[in-house]
């Protein structure tokens, strides 16, 4: 095992745990914020149930702005806000706010797209039954779009893994932080390899779980 001389397994373990915490924490908030935002985007768009052209244009613009800012820049720009929310801009806690802000608009768009895939005939049938908008959203749109939304959650989770690794740049902690501090800055290639392999395994597992859930809920 001469090759892995630089690897401190305890530290790897801690970093893995940090990465999972960052992923879990940011994913929960991303879903909590992105799902309603995606539903709102869908409902206010042209020819939809709550058509609101001005509101839609405004929401859409904000989403596009956030999505066009490179994540590294967002990380740095957000530092004051992050300190306000999390009390620190460092470590696991400091990484979560920028991750959520970076991923929410992305996820909201995926939700919007998934909702648009729902057959209009189903909305029409619901209206013909006398459903109000809330009943249509919870009774028809979200259940019917569930496979699409789960696929969106999977893609978002994987994006969050790579964003979380990037937050290592500003001292975010986790596997990315380890890779940058040891693997890159101190040329410890073995640390780099181990962290990348772990990240790869994480992505694989996430994709596998996601695919399973999508198939389970597709009912086709």
């Amino acid at each position, binding site marked *: 095992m001469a090759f892995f001389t630089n690897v401190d397994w305890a530290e790897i373990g801690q970093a893995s745990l940090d990465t999972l915490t960052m992923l879990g924490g940011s994913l929960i908030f991303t879903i909590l914020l992105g799902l309603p935002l995606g539903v709102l985007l869908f409902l206010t768009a042209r020819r939809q149930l709550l058509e609101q052209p001005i509101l839609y244009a405004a929401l859409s613009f904000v989403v596009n702005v956030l999505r066009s800012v490179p994540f590294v820049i967002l990380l740095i720009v957000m530092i004051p806000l992050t300190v306000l929310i999390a009390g620190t801009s460092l470590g696991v806690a400091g990484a979560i706010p920028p991750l959520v802000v970076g991923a929410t608009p992305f996820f909201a768009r995926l939700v919007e797209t998934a909702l648009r895939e729902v057959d209009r005939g*189903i909305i029409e*049938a619901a209206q*013909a*039954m*006398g*459903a109000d908008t809330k009943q249509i959203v919870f009774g028809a749109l979200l259940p019917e779009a*569930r496979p699409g939304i789960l696929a969106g959650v999977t893609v978002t989770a994987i994006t969050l893994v790579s964003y979380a690794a990037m937050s290592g740049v500003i001292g975010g902690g986790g596997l990315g932080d380890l890779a940058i501090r040891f693997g890159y800055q101190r040329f410890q290639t073995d640390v780099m390899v181990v962290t990348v392999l772990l990240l790869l395994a994480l992505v694989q597992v996430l994709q596998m779980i996601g695919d399973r859930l999508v198939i389970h809920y597709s*009912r*086709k």
Partner: protein
Amino acid sequence: MIQFQNIQKSFRVADRDVPALQGIDLEIEAGEVFGIIGHSGAGKSTLVRLINLLERPSAGQVLIDNIDVTALSASALRAMRQNIGMIFQHFNLLASKTVTENIAWPLKIAGWEAAAIAPRVREMIARVGLQEHAHKYPAQLSGGQKQRVGIARALATRPKILLCDEATSALDPQTTRSVLDLLADINRELRLTIVLITHEMDVVRRICDRVAVLDGGRVVELGPVAEVFLHPKHPTTRGFVFEAEHVDETEQYDDFAHVPGRLVRLTFTGDTTYAPLLGEVARDTGIDFSILAGRIDRIKDTPYGQLTVAFSAGDIDAALAQLSARGLSVEELR
């Protein structure tokens, strides 16, 4: 009773108003099966969607039991819609829900107690004969089974009106027949008003009491099915009837061109269909006749026959008068 009063409906397409319905005045009686037939784009769906206000009229009024639905508030409109069932060509079932859950959905929307929903859903599933499929998802059902779920779902809240937009167009002839029979049974049992869109005369003939023929956004012919079917007047109606009968009107007359004598079309309905009238009259008046074309069939519950006959020799006028007197409709073709 559903009344359309001077309805106009146009759609705004690329800054132009495209008329879809132009001056519709129509009354649909409670308890009848009312057919609406017309070619694609005639405005059938638009007309039916005015009843539950999925489309709003550009002008005119829609009255249901003398209530102007266009004047209802949003919540009153939702309450009214809970009393109008609708079924669709492509079924529009929730793919993510089982048969049971699909049928329970309108009841939830209407605010039924959970304890009341379960037995009602079981009752509806039994009524449409899907007991073995209660826990399947729509993707696991055939088209005919899906439409039965659609019917059960549409009737779960005990509506007085059922709207059917091309409800059998995606089904094969045999399945179409079984779905139509189910609708006819339900119409009789519940005195349900059924408004049924189709572009097939056979569907109209099988279950409708009255029919309106729509063309270019107007009602061009309206009446009891037997009347419209046996004596179609408007070219569009004639087209549908002859298509259903697999006859080519002009071709047929060409074939008869060389037949001597007077060409007459006789229409029998009801009991006269099976009476030996033609033979009796021939003996009485000494005419000769040859039958050139003919059919005997049913319109809903009424048997009818229609014969194209060439009369020669004897007292033809007396024969025609006798036939008329005995309840046949006599049309001289040549």
